[in-house]
């Protein structure tokens, strides 16, 4: 063990995730001399927001729009920086330095690439794991033909695919409108948009309007919204929603307030009500996290440089709290400067100085965010759905079963795992965690902060037994377990 403890790390810095935060961070860190590896599960850089930015088959640049194409500007600096770029690398574990091995402060990353698992040792990890769509549990959301709006956008970016047949979009939030706008540009028809934005949100958001009026979102957002509303049937104030069909989607059923139930025949339903931090890796690494009441989600706790509670682990971008792509890019640079400082490349003053323009840009990018968070906050009934709704897709556990477990003494998501297997499937709570937190909190009448979140464990992505078995082992590892 002492040999390994003394040996050099494979890299100074591993950046995990190649969306805007990861691209910007890796380029800055490597450009300033840190040996840096950028790891990402996807085959190409870009993350989800700039997915397929290097090779999208969509030739007409107006379809995806200028905000998307901005992502291409992050690629040159990465190439020039000398950072190693390992796409197609699934990180399934980050192990922090152990306090019983004080001589070895490296972190160990477990990853799979080309069907083989390996461990990588680094001095610092910067997680730029981005966001995922907030689970939108409605009855029937597991039917084939029902997808996330973000998923549909990925199909557009990566494959130039648009829905055909009868198409309904439902939910709330900027991405829903952006997707509708992109579809219109692409010549795809939409049958309806069912807007679930609670009317009361407007009242709550109004005081925050002044900041939004100075935000970069305003002009673009308003134009886009008006264009979509002009061309698509939009139903406002939807308070009930379900998908129906036998083996696949056949109809979308909705209700507005006390009105009568309406039924629309549909082949595709695209759901969206915001995004939440993709925190599984940070959580499994042991980073402390907190409940964000405004965004109604858990996020890892970070300081203003992205440093987490775990030595050697930083976070940047939406994975640390939703701020959007432009904010993520700046947060990536700020976090990278802090890593340079922590690894002894620059002193504190140089770090602070270098961060000034990025902090200013970050502040601009975040202007108006609170207005959007408040306006597009999903209604309670869609965050903690009715009893007959499946919340855990993997184990097919309903909201009613979770509530029943609470009545039997289940006090939080971790006990829900033991009671119900809720959250124990391969998605590891990504599609049920926020919902289970909210359902239990509401049922117990306490805040989500009190009921907590799943304790996640590596591998955060499933790996095969064969891959695990083939991990390089020393003779000592094997000898140590040959017993009596």
């Amino acid at each position, binding site marked *: 063990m002492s040999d390994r403890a003394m040996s050099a790390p494979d890299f100074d810095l591993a950046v995990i995730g190649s969306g805007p935060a990861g691209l910007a961070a890796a380029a800055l860190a490597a450009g300033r001399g840190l040996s840096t590896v950028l790891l990402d599960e996807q085959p190409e850089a870009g993350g989800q927001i700039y997915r397929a930015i290097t090779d999208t088959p*969509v*030739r007409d640049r107006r379809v995806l729009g200028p905000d998307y194409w901005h992502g291409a500007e992050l690629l040159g600096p990465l190439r020039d920086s000398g950072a190693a770029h390992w796409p197609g690398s699934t990180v399934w574990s980050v192990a922090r330095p152990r306090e019983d091995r004080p001589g070895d402060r490296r972190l160990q990353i477990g990853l799979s690439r080309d069907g083989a698992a390996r461990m990588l040792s680094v001095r610092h990890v910067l997680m730029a794991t981005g966001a995922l769509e907030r689970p939108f549990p409605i009855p029937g959301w*597991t039917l084939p033909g029902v997808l996330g709006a973000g998923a549909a956008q990925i*199909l557009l970016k*990566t494959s130039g695919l648009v829905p055909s047949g009868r198409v309904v979009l439902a939910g709330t939030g900027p991405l829903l409108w952006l997707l509708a706008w992109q579809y219109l540009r*692409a010549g795809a028809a939409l049958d309806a948009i069912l807007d679930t934005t609670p009317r009361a949100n407007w009242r709550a958001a109004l005081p925050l309007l002044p900041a939004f009026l100075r935000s970069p979102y305003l002009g673009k957002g308003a134009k886009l919204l008006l264009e979509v509303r002009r061309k698509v049937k939009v139903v406002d104030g939807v308070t009930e929603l379900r998908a129906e069909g036998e083996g696949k989607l056949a109809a979308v059923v909705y209700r507005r307030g006390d009105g009568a139930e309406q039924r629309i025949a549909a082949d595709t339903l695209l759901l969206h009500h915001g995004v939440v931090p993709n925190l599984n890796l940070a959580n499994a690494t042991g980073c402390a996290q907190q409940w964000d009441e405004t965004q109604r989600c858990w996020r890892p706790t970070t300081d203003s440089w992205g440093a987490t509670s775990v030595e050697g682990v930083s976070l940047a971008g939406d994975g640390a709290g939703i701020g959007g792509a432009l904010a993520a890019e700046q947060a990536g640079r700020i976090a990278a400067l802090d890593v340079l400082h922590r690894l002894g490349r620059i002193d504190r003053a140089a770090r602070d100085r270098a961060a000034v323009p990025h902090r200013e840009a970050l502040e601009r990018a975040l202007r108006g965010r609170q207005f959007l968070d408040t306006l597009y906050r999903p209604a309670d009934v869609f965050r903690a759905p009715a009893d007959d709704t499946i919340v855990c897709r993997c184990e097919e556990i309903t909201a009613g079963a979770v509530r029943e477990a609470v009545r039997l003494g289940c006090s939080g998501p971790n006990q829900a795992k033991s009671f119900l297997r809720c959250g124990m499937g391969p998605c590891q709570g990504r599609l049920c965690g926020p919902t289970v937190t909210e359902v239990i909190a509401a049922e117990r009448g306490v805040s989500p902060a009190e009921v907590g979140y799943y304790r996640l464990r590596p591998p955060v992505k499933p790996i095969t037994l064969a891959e695990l078995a083939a991990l390089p082992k020393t003779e000592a590892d094997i000898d140590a377990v040959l017993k009596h």
Partner: protein
Amino acid sequence: MFRRLPDIAGDRVSFTIDGRPAEARSGDSVAAALLANGVAACRNTPVSGAARGPYCMMGVCFDCLVTIDGTGNRQGCQVRVAPGMAVETQDGKREAGR
């Protein structure tokens, strides 16, 4: 159902879905290729047998699990389709050995 936009870049790729010939574009994930070929349901769940199809397209929901070239439980949205690839929809629990 999904359709391809006209004026799209990329080479055609031939593969099979449950033995039937199908066509995709280079750059498609297996899940995208299934949707482009009208296959919305790609597996039955091991819990209740309910049909499922691609939902998140970014590797987090594990609903697009399919058997690819004989290896089961692969995430269709995380694997790029390749010429001659054999994609099979999954029925419930996989056999332990495949």
